[in-house]
């Protein structure tokens, strides 16, 4: 085991900023009132929530009454899809999404399919992009909802959301985007982009875990999701997680204010890493779009080796990275995203996702590049696939 510890998995989650923790602290044991209570300490909590709502709304160009706090990004996705499907089923039962969505969307779609809805899963190109034309062509008279992720969690590809939003608006179809990965990395204006619903999650932008938001544009038909109280205007009942809500707003405020610097820094680390991996390691493939990608996202496939062994060896060297998709038990399945961009099954098992964040430096990239080529080389030396490849090369040279 290594004494160095480098965290390169910010797409999985991020550390909570000290300023955020500070903002949250009073709401645990000083201003702990129930926001629904009428007395002063309750009203303080209520006020904090409404201020937070305003901050979140402002960050995406929405109105406060369009912001609903949830328990996670996954919950927001579930609500967006199930709620809109249920509320609009008289109009039709067809939904359009992509084959590379997060499971929060994909599995919800599968659930809806089992309950009488029809779902079109749009294929993506080799960079993981869909085109507005594809969306347009998939629309049917009974289409009620389009759900397309803003940026992919594995390969970082950013979709042409504004153009898709325009099409959805023209056709009068509800447009949802899962912006869990994009938030804090990309400027989002729900008005200008014609987004009707948007999901986000605080822990992806240095906020606390266990808090998310669903934005629902005024006038969009949505069902009430959790019953049992008047919280979130009755749509999502349950006593509000006040400290987390306050923390989320603080984190988002800082993220929006620093976005340019943050992006510049991460893009530099990203591009350097991509360049050096391509220079120093043979038989690699960059997954995702080279330019239209999240600033901190690097995703490579390494021919002849399994991603699983690679991640374990990196872990032993103190580097926390991921393959982009961990299942519930923590083991790796071939990624549906990598399969969707056309990678063969064995390569889809073997990808490495590095996602940079605030605290990473060039020294971290130095260390990564010190360690990674050796690990890849060593795993390849053990790989029967690589051996076969080398033999084939030799034969070709002799001929």
């Amino acid at each position, binding site marked *: *085991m290594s004494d160095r510890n480098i965290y390169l998995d910010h797409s999985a989650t991020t550390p909570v900023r000290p300023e955020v923790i500070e903002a949250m602290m009073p709401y645990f044991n000083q201003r702990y009132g129930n926001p629904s209570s009428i007395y002063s300490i309750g009203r303080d909590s209520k006020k904090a929530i409404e201020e937070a709502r305003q901050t979140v709304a402002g960050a995406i160009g929405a109105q406060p009454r369009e912001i609903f706090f949830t328990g996670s990004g996954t919950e927001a996705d579930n609500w967006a899809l199930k709620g809109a499907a249920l509320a609009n089923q008289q109009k039709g039962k067809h939904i359009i999404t992509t084959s590379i969505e997060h499971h929060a969307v994909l599995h919800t779609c599968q659930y809806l399919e089992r309950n009488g809805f029809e779902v079109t899963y749009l294929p993506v190109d080799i960079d993981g992009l869909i085109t507005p034309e594809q969306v347009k062509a998939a629309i049917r008279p009974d289409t009620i909802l389009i759900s397309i992720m803003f940026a992919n969690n594995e390969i970082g590809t950013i979709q042409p959301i504004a153009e898709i939003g325009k099409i959805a608006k023209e056709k009068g179809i509800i447009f949802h985007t899962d912006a869990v990965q994009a938030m804090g990395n990309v400027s989002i204006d729900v008005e200008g982009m014609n987004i009707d619903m948007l999901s986000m999650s605080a822990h992806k932008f240095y906020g606390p875990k266990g808090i998310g938001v669903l934005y629902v544009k005024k006038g969009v038909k949505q069902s009430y999701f959790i019953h049992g109280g008047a919280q979130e205007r009755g749509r999502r009942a349950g006593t509000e997680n006040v400290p987390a809500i306050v923390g989320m707003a603080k984190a988002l405020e800082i993220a929006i204010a620093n976005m340019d610097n943050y992006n510049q820094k991460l893009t530099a680390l990203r591009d350097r890493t991509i360049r050096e991996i391509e220079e120093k390691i043979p038989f690699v493939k960059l997954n995702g779009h080279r330019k239209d990608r999240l600033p901190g996202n690097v995703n490579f496939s390494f021919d002849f080796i399994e991603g*699983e*062994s690679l991640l*374990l*060896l990196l*872990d*032993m060297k103190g580097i926390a990275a991921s393959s982009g998709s961990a299942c*519930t*038990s*923590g*083991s*790796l*399945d071939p990624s549906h995203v990598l399969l969707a961009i056309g990678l063969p099954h064995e390569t889809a*098992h073997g990808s490495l996702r590095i996602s940079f964040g605030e605290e990473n430096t060039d020294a971290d990239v130095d260390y990564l590049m010190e360690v990674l080529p050796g690990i890849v080389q*060593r*795993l390849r030396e*053990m*790989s029967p696939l690589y051996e076969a490849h080398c033999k084939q090369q030799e034969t070709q040279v002799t001929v």
Partner: protein
Amino acid sequence: MLGMSGGVDSSVAAAVLLEKGYEVIGVTMQLWPDMQEERKEKEGGCCSLSAVDDARRVAQKLGISYYVLNFKDIFQEKVIDYFSQEYLKGRTPNPCIACNRFVKFDAMLRKALSMGIDYIATGHYAKIDFDEQRGRFLLKKSATDAKDQTYVLYTLTQQQLSRALFPIGDFTKESVREIAEELDLCVASKPDSQEICFVEENDYGRYICENTSTEIRPGFFVDLEGNKLGKHKGIIHYTVGQRKGLGNTFGKPMFVVAIKPEDNTVVLGEKKDVFSSELTASNMNFISIPGLTCEMKVKAKIRYSSKEADALISPLNNNRVHVLFNEPQRAITPGQSVVFYKEDEVVGGGVID
């Protein structure tokens, strides 16, 4: 790298290894194909999600690194597909032997070596010794005969044995449970697993029907002379020696004597007909000796639960052997393995033809 199933044996194995000073990395192999959500929820065999939770808790308690590794593809190919194919050929496979041979002691071992890990360990009841004189690694029976698992480990090669550790081979099941209780491991009183891990409710016939494209056709029960006795529901549902569940009454107790995929018949006979004194076996692997060159007196075991019996083994060509028992054996079953012992040493074994 220790294979952790979430059961008491492999959990205690971790503790024993730590005690001996090894650096232990716990691993649970994910083996089964993706299943329906409802099935995942059920309490499964050795590698279910709940098993993963148990193994992870034990690893946390002992303070060792723990990973879940994906061996689904190789398990599908080498264990599940093989399992179905054998039944379709009228044979009765032992999937645990295939899993040990191709998954635990091959795929997992290679994974460990590629990561710079020196040994793989499992919670099997068996012992490994290096015999200086013969220059060979020996596989020996565990402290308790009742729990001994050498039968399912006979395929191990010298190279595999040189890299394998069986930490609880010197312990009895009772002492393993005691250690687990002393260490306050949550799995101390978990029941032993018995069934085929990937088959639900032990209904392997239904499993094969649902998981192969081959049509399972009903056919005829016939007697030793080939006379039709009645209808059977497909050869995969039967195994040699079986009496119960034949679904017909024949006026007297009848037993499955043979299964013939070529004409889709199941041959029935009387009790005496299921006894036989000899067999041949293929795909031999020898452990205590480099190979069989001349006749040898051994104790032979023809299935996991059967008793050892005196036998004389002699070499045949193509890595096969002939086994002649002193006493006739009940239900010698093609597809099962025969394993040879001398005292507590495993001589070797192979698959019954």
